[in-house]
Each structure stands twice: as C-alpha cells, then as structure tokens.
C-alpha cells in the first residue's frame, strides 16, 4: 500500500500527471473511486481484494478527461479494459499512465500501453467455475423454463443503467436506449423493455467484454446480468477461438473468417 501511495505521490509532485484515479475507502466498507489531484491526496489510496470497481470506466468521462493527463491504478481487468479502449482509439500513451496492481500484489509502473498489453497477455480470460455451473444449469433447463427464469430474474430491473455506467466499454455519448425517435427500447420497467435492454447490452459487448463483473456488481438489485456476457465469452471461444484485448489487430465482431462454421443456415 505504501509503495502505491509513494508512487502516486511522486507522480503528482513531479506533475507528470494531473490526476490519479484510484480506490479509496467508501461508505459501508465498499471502496469507491478517488481522483487524486494533490500530492497529499495520495494518502487516501487503498488497494485490497474488495476493490472490484472497474476504474477504466472513468477514463472516457469528459469530466476526467478535462483534467488533462491522468494516471490510473489498474488491476488486471482494468488493464484489459484499458487496452480494449486503446484499440478503439479512446485512450493513448499521451494521455494515460498505468500503474499496474498485479494479481500477486506487486505494483508495476508501465512505461507505455504496449507494456500493459504484453503483461495482460500472460493471463487468459477465463470464467469462474461458479458462473460455469450457473450456465450449465440454465442449459439443462427446457427453453420455456429458461425464458420464464429470465423474465422472472429481469422483472425487478427498472433500467437505472448502473450496469451501463459501470462498464468501461459503454462509452457512447448517445446510447441506443436514449433514442426515442424511434423508441427502440421501451423505457418503463416492463418485461419487454427489460428483455430488449439486456439483450442489447450483451450484444453490444460481444467480443469487447473482458469479464470484469463490474455490471453485476453495480446492479442495485443483484440481477446476474453478467451471465449473458459470460455466455458470449464462452461462445466466442467455442466458435472463433476466443479473444484478448489487443492494441493492433481486428476485433472479434469487426472481422470474419471465410470459413466460420455454423450449422443453422440453409
């Protein structure tokens, strides 16, 4: 912890960056994001296993961008998000400095995003066995049961869009749900709108989701919406050999192979 604080302090004192995004102690023992702008703010920073919020969601927000060059204390999922954002031209080396918090509790200062990329490629994106079991259980149900299960599970959703706000990949200035001419997704808390919103969210994150669970953690009603993303992650592996965020190269859904296999088109 001291190592991290000292590094952040040094960065802010040397004015290498104007703001450092990190975790601080929040209410209810839930860490929250802190934006350190003064060297003394560095003392607020914490890092432990409770820090599951994906801080990469903040780097595309214009309030944070307006501060100029930023640094971010990044766990592995955050680093993955950063590389994905960089590949979508949302951040670059000139405006972001990454302080890596590795799974084995080391603090690494990365010189550039290419180094971050090399680091994240050491770890494969894999789904927790807990979720694998949940998906298998769903697969065993009949289709009608699955439908009812989801309708029931999504019923409490009132579309607060906390899942969207928590997701670093949902950075569009105008989201499809915000459109009302035509109204693609009905706004009221109703089965149809809920269903369509969650399908839409999952589809838009296909091949981009890096499995950080920020959406499910952000959901105030505890709806397991990350199951959808996890299934698509598994399917990407099954059909197209999986993916990793990469600085250069094609995204899963913006490319194709002439010999992609399917068995349902006649």
């Amino acid at each position, binding site marked *: 912890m001291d190592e991290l604080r000292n590094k952040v302090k040094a960065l802010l004192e040397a004015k290498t960056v104007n703001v450092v995004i990190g975790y601080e102690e929040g209410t209810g023992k839930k860490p929250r994001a802190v934006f350190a702008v003064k060297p003394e703010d560095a003392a607020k920073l914490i890092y432990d296993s409770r820090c599951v919020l994906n801080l990469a969601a903040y780097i595309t927000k214009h309030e944070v961008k307006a501060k100029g060059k930023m640094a971010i204390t990044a766990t592995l999922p955050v680093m993955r998000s950063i590389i994905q954002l960089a590949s979508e031209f949302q951040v670059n080396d000139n405006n972001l400095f990454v302080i890596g918090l590795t799974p084995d509790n080391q603090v690494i200062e990365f010189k550039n995003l290419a180094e971050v990329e090399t680091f994240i490629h050491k770890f494969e994106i894999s789904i927790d066995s807990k979720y694998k079991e949940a*998906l298998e259980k*769903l697969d065993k149900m009949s*289709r*009608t*049961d*699955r*439908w*009812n*299960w*989801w*309708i029931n599970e999504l019923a409490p959703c009132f579309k607060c869009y906390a899942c969207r706000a928590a997701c670093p990949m949902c950075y569009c200035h105008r989201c*499809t749900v915000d459109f009302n001419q035509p*109204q*693609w997704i*009905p706004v*009221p808390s*109703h*089965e*149809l709108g809920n*269903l*369509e919103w*969650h*399908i*839409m969210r*999952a*589809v838009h994150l*296909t*091949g981009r989701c890096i499995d950080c669970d920020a959406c499910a953690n952000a959901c105030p009603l505890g709806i397991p919406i990350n*199951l*959808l993303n996890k*299934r*698509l992650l598994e*399917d*990407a592996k099954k*059909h*197209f050999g999986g993916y990793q965020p990469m600085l250069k190269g094609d995204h*899963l*859904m*913006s490319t*194709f*192979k*002439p010999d*992609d296999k*399917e068995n*349902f*088109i*006649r």
Partner: protein
Amino acid sequence: MSDFEPRIVAFVCNWCTYAGADLTGTSRIKYASNVRIVRFPCTGRIDYMLLLKAFDEGADGIIVSGCHPNDCHYTSGNFHARRRWIMFRELCDLMGIDINRIQFSWVSAAEGSKWADVVNTTVTKIRELGPYTEYKKVANWPVKEVING
C-alpha cells in the same frame, strides 16, 4: 390450431434473395403467402434489434436471407452478418427465445425455387410450433399504443 395462419417476416438482401424472390414470382412458382418481405441493402445491415422488433410486432417466425458466402455485393457483408448471427443465436438460446422460429438461409438471385422451398418449409414449421404466444404476451402491454402514437 387449424385456423392459425403464421405471420412471417423475411429480412432479405437486395442483391440476392430479393432478386431470387422476384424470380420465384416470374417463374410462376407458387409459395405460401404468409411471408412479408422487407428489403435491405445487405445482410450486414440486418440489425438484431429488427429481429426482436419483428417479434414485438407480432411475427410468429422470421426468415433472414442473403447472398451465399463469397457472393456479397459489398464483398464481405454476409460474412460479418454470419458472425453476428452465430453469436446472436447463442444469446437468444440462453435467454429462452425460440430460435427455431428464426430461419437463416442463403438464397441467390438464381434460386427462385429454393426461396419457395425456404418459405414453405418455414411456414410448415411455424404452423406446427403455433403462434408465438410467449413473446406476444410480453410484447402486448397497454402503454405500447401510447408510445407508438
């Protein structure tokens, strides 16, 4: 359910299947009249939201059809679409949406008889499955009329 007539929406590409369906007509091949054809510039343009909206609006089945691989007018639209369908189908399956009601196919401009066959078999299949009441129940809600004017 003998008097049930399925309502089917077909999303087709302008260059292959639409022309193919045209050929079916000019060749005087008779096929089921349950299908409403919607013409798109390319299968790559067919958004998954349109499929969901078709179910919302009361479709019992959907046909999505375009050029065979390597025949796309825009070189790669159908390849992109294929990837999207593969993933979308898996997602629908997880959500419990009846993927048997969505028929994907490649029909070229020369395959007039194949188009008739695709439509006929889909209609038969949907007739067996019956009306898509599950989705209609969810989609049929009072505020809808207000929102859609």
